């Protein structure tokens, strides 16, 4: 394989007010390789990508492509030079159709005019290669984040011509989609493309990448061959000290008030989103909802928090029958909810970290009992420290934080309300390895204090570690429950897979 240098960056520096996001970083991408860019939340990965592709003007440094120096001033120019990018934040237009999002800026034409038919057909083909069968004539906003992510990838892959950059493309994808994506990435690599890949999933790094560049606090730690770098050492490089995963993991403690039911749902159902389900959440219990994307996990959470209205079923909190639920009532009852799709539903970009954190607390207290700014600052600073949110101060606008740190702020928002029931929908998505374990530890501590947690995660390991009980969902149906020693990753997977495959022994189950 040709190992010639494709893209080389030297001495890249970039600072924002109060933050040195990158200082003198070197980076080399070779032809025909997949190169992981690793680092904790706020290490500077996305900033490096944006500096390379002309979104940010770099303070210092030079970039060469195929040996020639380049100065892209905008993503458009970078594209013309052969660098196509999927940025961390969703970078598509929700009001346009799926097909347009893939082809905008480079429409197929017939007699000077845009040829919609060809565009739709080619989009369909392109997405089918990623195993995605959707109506490309629908507007993008009518699809889930996972689908939108796949569309963004399809667009970048189709444009790519030399260099493809993917900034956390897999954070909202299901396993099957990740598989399809990897298949495409391998094919492109064999064709000689260079791919930069950012993720916080170590398994994915070891599955697909050839080299790893590690950043820490905006500085280059080093470049390594993936095969020669053990995991613990990779993480040690990222966090800057020796890493021992066993130290960090918390353990399930004896719980106060267990077996005291707190929330009981009987036959809760909503047509088209979830079939009747019975759920009991005890005090101080971590109850997991397992299942694939679209199995109804999120839908259950939304019913309980009152975002969606059930068609049927009963709902009691502390033995008191609830005739209806809506989010404000849920908050008053002491519920907290971190939604799955934080990019859309969670952050208020223009507000500061402090304001974002006290938002839910203020909502519960009512608008007229204002919290003093000093008190707000205290709360914010507490959580900034607890969750290791990387920021110069609590007054920073949340949209200036790195993706993972924004996520932590949303988590802090609900922790600050000191809820009785905390609903966590994929709380660790996009969060770095170290903080992930911190958050798991925190969940266990909360449960120890008698707080109930409804926990949703695609990472089964995380589920097994945190949960006391796991309810397994499949195709919008509850299909079983596991607890205690039965609750292993294999068993959960088995149940998820078995629902429709009882006679098929070749389903690749177990491992």
């Amino acid at each position, binding site marked *: 394989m040709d190992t010639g240098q494709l893209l080389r960056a030297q001495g890249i520096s970039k600072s924002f007010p109060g933050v040195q996001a990158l200082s003198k970083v070197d980076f080399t991408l070779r032809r025909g390789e997949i190169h992981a860019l690793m680092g904790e939340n706020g290490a500077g990965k996305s900033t490096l990508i944006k500096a390379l592709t002309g979104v940010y003007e770099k303070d210092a440094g030079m970039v060469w492509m195929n040996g020639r120096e380049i100065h892209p001033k905008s993503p458009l120019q970078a594209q013309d030079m052969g660098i196509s990018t999927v940025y961390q934040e969703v970078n598509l237009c929700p009001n346009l159709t799926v097909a347009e999002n893939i082809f905008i800026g480079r429409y197929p034409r017939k007699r000077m005019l845009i040829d919609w038919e060809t565009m739709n057909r080619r989009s369909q083909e392109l997405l089918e290669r990623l195993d*995605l069968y959707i109506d490309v004539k629908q507007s993008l906003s009518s699809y889930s984040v996972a689908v939108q992510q796949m569309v963004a990838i399809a667009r970048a892959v189709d444009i790519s011509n030399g260099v493809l950059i993917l900034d956390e493309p897999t954070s909202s994808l299901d396993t099957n989609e990740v598989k399809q994506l990897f298949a495409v990435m391998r094919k492109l690599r064999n064709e000689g493309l260079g791919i930069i890949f950012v993720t916080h999933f170590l398994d994915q790094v070891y599955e697909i990448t050839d080299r790893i560049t590690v950043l820490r606090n905006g500085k280059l730690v080093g470049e390594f061959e993936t095969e020669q770098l053990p995991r613990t050492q990779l993480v040690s490089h990222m966090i800057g000290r020796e890493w021992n995963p066993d130290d960090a993991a918390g353990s399930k403690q004896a719980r106060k008030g267990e077996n005291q039911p707190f929330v009981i749902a009987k036959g809760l159902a909503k047509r088209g989103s979830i079939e009747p389900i019975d759920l009991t959440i005890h005090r101080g219990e971590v109850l997991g909802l397992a299942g694939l994307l679209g199995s109804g996990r999120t839908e259950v959470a939304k019913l309980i928090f009152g975002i969606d209205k059930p068609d049927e079923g009963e709902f009691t909190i502390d033995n008191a029958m609830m005739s209806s639920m809506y989010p404000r009532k849920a908050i008053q009852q002491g519920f907290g909810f971190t939604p799955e799709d934080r990019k859309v539903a969670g952050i208020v970009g223009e507000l500061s970290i402090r304001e974002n954190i006290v938002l839910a607390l203020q909502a519960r207290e009512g608008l007229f009992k204002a919290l003093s700014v000093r008190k707000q600052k205290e709360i914010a600073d507490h959580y900034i420290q607890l969750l290791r949110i990387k920021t110069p101060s609590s007054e920073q606008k949340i949209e200036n934080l790195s993706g993972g740190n924004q996520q932590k702020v949303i988590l802090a928002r609900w922790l600050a309300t000191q809820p009785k029931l905390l609903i966590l929908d994929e709380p660790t998505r996009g969060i770095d390895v170290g903080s992930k374990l911190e958050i798991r530890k925190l969940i266990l501590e909360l449960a120890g204090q008698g707080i109930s947690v409804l926990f949703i995660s695609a990472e089964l390991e995380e589920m097994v570690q945190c949960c006391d009980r796991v309810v397994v969902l499949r195709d919008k149906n509850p299909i079983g429950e596991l607890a205690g020693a039965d609750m292993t990753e294999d068993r959960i997977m088995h149940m998820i897979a078995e629902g429709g495959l009882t006679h098929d022994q070749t*389903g690749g189950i177990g491992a």
Partner: protein
Amino acid sequence: MKSLYGRISHNNIIIFATLLLLVLLYGAGSFQYTGFFSQQVFLNLFIDNAYLIIVATGMAFVIISGGIDLSVASIVALVSMVAGSLFQQGANAFVVILASLAIGVLFGLGHGYLIARFKLHPWIVTLAGMFLARGISYLISTESIVISNSFFNEVSQYKIRLFGDGFISISVVIALVVVVAAILGAKYTAFGRAIYALGGSEKSSMLMGLPVERTIVSVYALSGFMSALGGVVFTFYTLSGYSLHLLGMEMDAIAACVIGGILLTGGFGYLIGPMLGVICTGIIQTLIMFQGTLSSWWTKIAIGFLLFLFMAIQRLIVMQKDRGATKSARRKPAATLQNQPKSVNKIGNL
């Protein structure tokens, strides 16, 4: 072929609502007043409002891009004054038309440049442009100027006969050509689609590699051009220049866009909409004229009411959209089931 019902979607339902309203209003008028249901009454709607159709269509592009242009009415007045004073000095009609259009485009380019380059808010910039244009027309003269150019006179008087004894003016032809070009341009050119993308998300457009600044500058230049063209057509219609012409008409243009289903938040709408909106308000005006005793201010009240109604409809549609926003992909089930368990295992094992 899909049935009509199948073709109604979230996106075009407002257009259908506007069409329905049009038919209802016109039907009510025909039922109530003799002489309302005549070809010429209908055609007059276009003759009297040709300039507004053009201006509102330009405005629609700006609104779809996520902006607003408050200067349109002043530019029409300025163009009428420039035309008037140039004719006084004996200028040729074509020179006058070219100069008028150039003025509009220059204003638009200025607006666009300030908005794109310095990230200023379009409300502020075009408000300034509105005062500036109105101010310059005062400078030219505070009196109204009568235009007696032979070419303008001829165009003004010329009647294009249709079947029967109906007729339209040349201005109507210009307006219809503009609308057709706008519809095609919006759907079939890269510039048109970039405007929609911009209205959907400016940041995403930039990250996707669209020429954001160029598009912003162009869309305001286009609106300036349309305002100037509207000004020329308006001058054909009134044959006079006056600095107080059409005070507040920018709001009529915005209203026409809203009634025609152009979402003020940007990113949505069909370019046939503004014309339908203009005709709607035109019918209301005609109704009140036929009624005879009501003051013409009732037109404003009716339009205000309609605006509320259409805003409410738009809001409902947006809310509906948000609610239904979680379609996931349909997959080939067999492939999915067999592949998943294995890789679920791989993820998340530290």
